[in-house]
Every structure is written in structure tokens, then in C-alpha cells.
């Protein structure tokens, strides 16, 4: 049985798809058979980030509506073994995403894969709720700013009440906090919330901290998940995140990284 992980946030633009792509790739690189599903019907992006947009023929909605088999819609990743992508539909109506249909797809995938990563759309509507409904674990992607933290808080409330595990009174969805676009310089200057601020409000386990990095934008535009770029800080941070997801104890990095010339400010604050 696969472990179903939803990557969600409430707020848009915080790095859900980037994180879903990087984490799914990271899990596959560690030898886990992994599939990543785009739930963002109508605004499909995952295929671009994964660099397989030209190979999309069928999508999740086609499968749900019985117009294509699951194996026809799954795209094998070219770079990484054990990794498949199930794209969203760009043209269909998002109402076509039914709970029964999604359950059936997840059940079938569960037989074959170790991990199913669900890339949630932004918001708290139908698509987002469906993406999280069947999850065993949730990665809540949060930027160090107040609106993102509040939206993540809202999502955590939904995870505790609007998931299959909650409705069946099973053990709750395991919640992980992933802080992205963290810029220690701007934290020091007071422009951003500190790591501690975010952790204090959301009060869940921190699974990773991804520094603001040019590597992420470059990776997105090239369609290569950033974990492949192990020279970059973001790539390493995602690799650490994957290790922690797999239960390893990895010390936190990059939360006090400073650019050259600012070393003196490094110990001024935020060190924990």
C-alpha cells in the first residue's frame, strides 16, 4: 500500500508545485516507486515543472471518466527511474473531479507505488479538499509571511476535519510544515517572519526549510525539479526534506545562511 502525501497550502504561489515535484523526485531518487498527481484542473503546472508537458496525452480527468486507462495517462519521468507523473487536465471543468473517481485512481496506484504525492490546487475549495481527502500525510507549504501562515493554519484545520481519516476517526493525517522562500537576510531585517514565529503559530513538525534561491526559478523554467541540482542550496534543502520524510534525523540548514559581507549580522538574531 502506498503512502499518500498531499502537498497543500491554501495560499497560491508559495511553492506547492515546486515542492511536490522536488519531493516526488527526491523520493524516487531514493529508490521509492513514486507517482505525483496534479490536482490543479484548469491550471495545470506540474507537467511544466517536471519537464514533460510535451508528452501529455491523457490526464487525470480522462482516467476518472473512463476515456483512458491509468497506464495510458501516466508519464514516465525521463531523468528519474521509479517516477511517474499523472497530469491534470487544462481544458476540463474541475467539477469532473469526483471523490469516487479519485478514490478509484488512488486505490489502483496504491497497489503499485510506494508513494503517491498529490499536488493540491490553491484555495480551500473542491479541488483542494479532494486532493487532501485521502491523504495519510500532509506537507503544508508556507512562506514566512502572515497571510501564508494564516492560510496554512486554515488548511491544518481542514486536514483535521475534512479528510477521510478524520471522518472515519482513524489516526489523524500526519502534518508536516515545509517553509519555503526563506530569506534569512530579510528575516533579520524584519521583513519576514522568523522560523520560530511560523513554528509557534502553526505548532506542527517542521519537515524542511527551503531558502529563497535562484536555483528554484531556473529549475522551474528548465522543467528540471530542483533536487537534481545538488550544487544549489534549495536542491540540498529539498533532499534534506525527503530524508526527514523518510524518518531520518537531519539537522536544519540554510536558516541562517548569509550572503558575503553580511557575516557580521549573522549572529545578531534568529539563531536557534
Amino acid at each position, binding site marked *: 500500500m502506498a503512502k499518500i502525501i498531499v502537498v497543500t497550502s491554501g495560499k497560491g504561489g508559495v511553492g506547492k508545485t515546486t515542492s511536490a515535484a522536488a519531493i516526488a523526485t527526491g523520493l524516487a531518487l531514493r529508490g521509492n516507486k513514486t507517482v505525483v498527481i496534479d490536482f490543479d484542473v484548469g491550471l495545470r503546472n506540474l507537467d511544466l515543472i517536471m519537464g514533460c508537458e510535451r508528452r501529455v496525452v491523457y490526464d487525470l480527468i480522462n482516467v476518472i471518466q473512463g476515456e483512458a486507462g491509468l497506464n495510458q495517462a501516466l508519464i514516465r519521468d525521463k531523468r528519474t527511474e521509479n517516477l511517474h507523473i499523472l497530469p491534470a487536465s487544462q481544458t476540463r471543468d474541475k467539477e469532473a473531479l469526483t471523490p469516487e473517481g479519485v478514490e478509484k485512481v488512488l486505490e489502483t496506484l496504491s497497489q503499485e507505488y510506494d508513494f503517491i504525492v498529490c499536488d493540491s490546487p490553491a484555495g480551500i475549495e473542491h479541488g483542494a479538499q479532494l486532493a487532501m481527502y485521502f491523504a495519510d500525510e500532509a506537507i503544508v507549504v508556507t512562506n514566512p509571511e502572515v497571510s501564508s501562515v494564516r492560510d496554512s*493554519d*486554515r488548511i491544518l484545520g481542514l486536514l483535521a476535519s475534512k479528510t477521510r481519516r478524520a471522518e472515519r476517526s482513524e489516526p489523524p493525517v500526519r502534518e508536516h510544515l515545509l517553509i519555503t522562500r526563506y530569506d534569512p537576510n530579510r528575516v533579520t531585517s524584519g521583513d519576514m517572519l522568523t522560523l520560530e514565529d511560523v513554528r509557534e503559530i502553526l505548532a506542527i513538525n517542521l519537515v524542511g526549510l527551503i531558502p529563497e534561491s535562484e536555483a528554484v526559478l531556473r529549475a522551474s523554467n528548465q522543467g528540471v525539479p530542483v533536487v537534481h541540482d545538488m550544487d544549489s542550496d534549495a536542491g540540498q534543502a529539498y533532499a534534506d526534506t525527503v530524508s526527514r520524510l523518510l524518518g531520518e534525523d537531519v539537522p536544519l540548514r540554510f536558516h541562517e545562511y548569509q550572503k558575503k559581507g553580511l557575516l557580521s549580522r549573522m549572529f545578531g538574531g534568529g539563531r536557534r
Partner: protein
Amino acid sequence: MSLNMDRVASAFTFKGGMLPMTVMELTSADPEQIRAQLAGKVSQSPAFFQHTPVVLSVEQLDEPHLALERICAVCRAHKLLPVAVRGGTDPVKQSAWALGLGWFPPQEARPRAVEEAPLAAEPQPEGEASPAPAVGRIYRGTVRSGQQVTAPEGDLVVVGAVNPGAEVLAAGSVHVYGPLRGRALGGIHGDRQAGIFCKELHAELLSLAGNYKRLEDIDPRLLNQPVQVQLRDDQLNISSLG
């Protein structure tokens, strides 16, 4: 942080409010029976019947059609002002609207345990007369944005944080053993003795028996402090518990 509500040209502003409201839970649809009971109540506590706004709850009734107009007339004759109807069938809703009353959906399935003695002879102008001693509610964990935790009777104790965008309400007092960053409303049925207590004050809104203070109105020196909030002369009085 300003909501920009003070534009010169605007004739009004919409504000969310939590007002104490008496709910008249009907267990009979017979206007005459209601009249008889009301007459008895008026003699018991005349002070209560002074154009007091009430919400007529018809959830307990199992009748698709109600003589709503006659019931309202009986209420008005006893100086109760029906302002809205709660629950009931679609025809009930339509006739409420036709009478210029608001309509509220029925409350979600509530425990019916305390309702075996409906409308007990309780002279106090409280929301729902409850014969049983008020039982509180203890909530463990973080109350998150968008969540609402209510103690319809008695005190509410939250062992954890109340985050921004969350709301905690109690008929009695609200106790938060953690940071209070959301909205806290005590005495929601009008209990003026109720208080709010928290370990760390950063509330968006504090309200007791309908009187409220916003975060902006709170003395900054009290922020992030353990405090108690009490009602004094219709003013919320916040004092440090440190």
C-alpha cells in the same frame, strides 16, 4: 492595519456583531397555548418583556405549516419583538420572509439532553432556560483559523492556542491556556459576570455580553501578557494577571 472604514462619503459601514439574543424555542404551534404561557411569564418578570427581540425557533416542531402571523401577534401583544425565525420547512421560511422576519437555518444537531423541560419557569432574561447546571466544555489543541469552538452553556476552556482567524465563544467565561490570537466572546447569552482569561493576549477581538474591544483598542502594554478581561460599567476592563 486600518480597514479604511472612515471614508467621508459612506453612509454606513457593515460590522459583524454578536448580540445576545433570546431564543424562544417553540414546543407548541398553538397560538392560544403560547398566549397562556406568555401571560404567566409576564406577571413573573415584567422587566423582561419590554420590546425584547426574540428569535422564534421552530426546530422542535414537526409541522410543515405554522400560523406564524398569529404567533408573532401574540408575542407582540406581550411586548416581545420577533425578529427572526430559526428552522422549519420551506413554507415556514417563505412566510417568515413575507412577514419581514429573518430566517436562520436550524442549528446543527445539538444534544437534546437538556431540553426535556422546555421553557422552564426561569424568570431571568437568559437565552435558553436550562434547568440543568451549566456544564462547560474543555477543548484541547490549537483552535485554527476558520474554526469556531463554542460552549453553548457554561465556560469554555481551551488548552492550547487560539490562532488568528479562529473564534471561541462561551455562554460563560472563556479561558485560554495558551496565546489568544483570534476572537474570544464570553457571555454570549448576556451573562455580564462572564470573563475572558488567557495566558498571552493578542486577541483580534474581545467581547463580553455584547460589549467588545478590538485589537486596536487594547493598550499595547497588555499585549502578550497574561490577562483577565471583565465587564465594568459596560466597558471591557483588561488587567494583567502577571
